């Protein structure tokens, strides 16, 4: 895995040196090995801090919308990030010709909360290969199979490879199994109505409305979010049941046909709410009904942006 980091470094160096891009969005080391941070490289001497491993848990496409369209951006993309970039391009949030996508086939993001749950947070060293994660905790080396530590949404990943990268670092990986991907949602669908609602209540009542899910999501780029809208106020402003349920229903629903299943919302949530269980359901539906997956290319409009007479009508009388 560390050879990827070397390749990435020389690639970024090249992009900056040859003035192909103005800024490269990647990750950098922080004091704690568990928390690498999104970083913006503008010249090559900052690159000593460059980091790339499976702990890099943010979706970097999120930062694209902060830049003017004419900024030439190099960006590290894994499978889901590439799809997010595509989805943003479909929605005209940046221009493809001003982007340079450095693709990395992804072995899955390691969930820092799972590590801490197993070892505590006194982790001083971290290393990984394709199958195993090794951490140094209070002077002791502990090794886990990668599968045990992967984030839930990465366990369900179907497309680990970037679909539209300008350069691909590392060999493409086999596609994931869609039937596994659907298990999470299937499990909930199998419950009866009251159980489903109880589950939904249990998830949403922990929400503190910090909107980390919104801010971490590349597709949530609205200048004014519907919850911030004061006149009329459609969603109760407080942490009452109604306010929180409405937030989660509509947030997920606004992602219909746009969500790329990256799981960034869930990883950002400080209260461990299983946000992807909502968006995954919508993704499944969209796949089934409209044969569409967000971000697989940069032309196809999401289903809600188009319509035709033969659309499925499940509720019309």
């Amino acid at each position: 895995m560390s050879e990827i980091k070397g390749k990435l470094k020389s690639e970024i160096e090249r992009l900056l040196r040859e003035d192909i891009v103005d800024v490269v969005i990647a990750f950098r080391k922080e004091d704690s090995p568990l928390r690498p941070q999104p970083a913006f490289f503008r010249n090559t001497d900052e690159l000593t801090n460059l980091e790339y491993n499976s702990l890099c848990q943010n979706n970097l496409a999120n930062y694209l919308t902060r830049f003017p369209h004419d900024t030439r951006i190099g960006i590290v993309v894994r499978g889901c990030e590439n799809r997010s970039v595509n989805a943003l391009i479909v929605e005209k949030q940046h221009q493809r010709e001003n982007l340079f996508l450095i693709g990395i086939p992804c072995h899955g993001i390691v969930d820092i909360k799972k590590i801490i749950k197993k070892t505590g947070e006194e982790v001083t060293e971290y290393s990984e290969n394709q199958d195993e994660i090794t951490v140094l905790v209070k002077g002791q080396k502990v090794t886990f199979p990668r599968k045990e530590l992967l984030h839930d949404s990465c366990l369900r990943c179907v497309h680990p490879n970037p679909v539209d990268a300008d350069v691909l670092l590392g060999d493409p990986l086999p596609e994931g199994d869609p039937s596994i991907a659907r298990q999470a949602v299937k499990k909930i669908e199998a419950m009866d109505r009251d159980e489903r609602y109880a589950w939904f209540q249990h998830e949403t009542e922990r929400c503190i409305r910090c909107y980390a899910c919104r801010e971490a999501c590349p597709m949530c780029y609205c200048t004014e979010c519907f919850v911030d809208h004061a006149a009329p106020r459609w969603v109760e402003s407080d942490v009452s049941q109604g306010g929180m349920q409405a937030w989660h229903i509509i947030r997920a629903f606004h992602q219909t046909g746009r969500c790329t299943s990256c799981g960034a919302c869930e990883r950002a949530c400080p209260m461990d709410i299983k946000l992807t269980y909502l968006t995954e359901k919508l993704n499944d539906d969209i796949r089934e009904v409209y044969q569409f997956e967000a971000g697989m290319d940069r032309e196809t409009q999401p289903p809600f942006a188009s319509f035709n007479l033969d659309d499925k009508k499940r509720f019309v009388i």
Partner: protein
Amino acid sequence: METRPKIVLFQCQWCLFSEPDQHWVDHELPPSIHLVKLPCTGRINPLHILNAIQGGTDGIMISGCRPEKCHYKEGNLSALRQHDEFLNFLDYIGYEKERVRFAWLDLQDRGRIQRELADFEMAVAKLGKAKILATRAHAPIGGEHV
């Protein structure tokens, strides 16, 4: 249910082709039915539906023109995909999807709105009072729920 179920009717202002029907909807709806008149069903946002549900309505009826007859050419079609998916999603989190109906009315459907509403009211009455997602309530005094 002892009292009649509370129903919200979202009505596209173009969908009732006969004058008596529109007059009935505008002036003679029973008090248990709350009318929300819209320029087109395409104007309905999932938030509107959710807001009605959270406010404790027992059933939601949406009446609109047939797709070919939309006053704005394709407004109701653009809404259809969203509403279809939205209700399916509400069902996923436990809401009774039978509580929402989408009626497409046509030129010859004179008097149909009354029939559909009566039929819907009966169906909703059978389901009983809506509890799921009906969440609007006073906060406990001084937020004592912590």
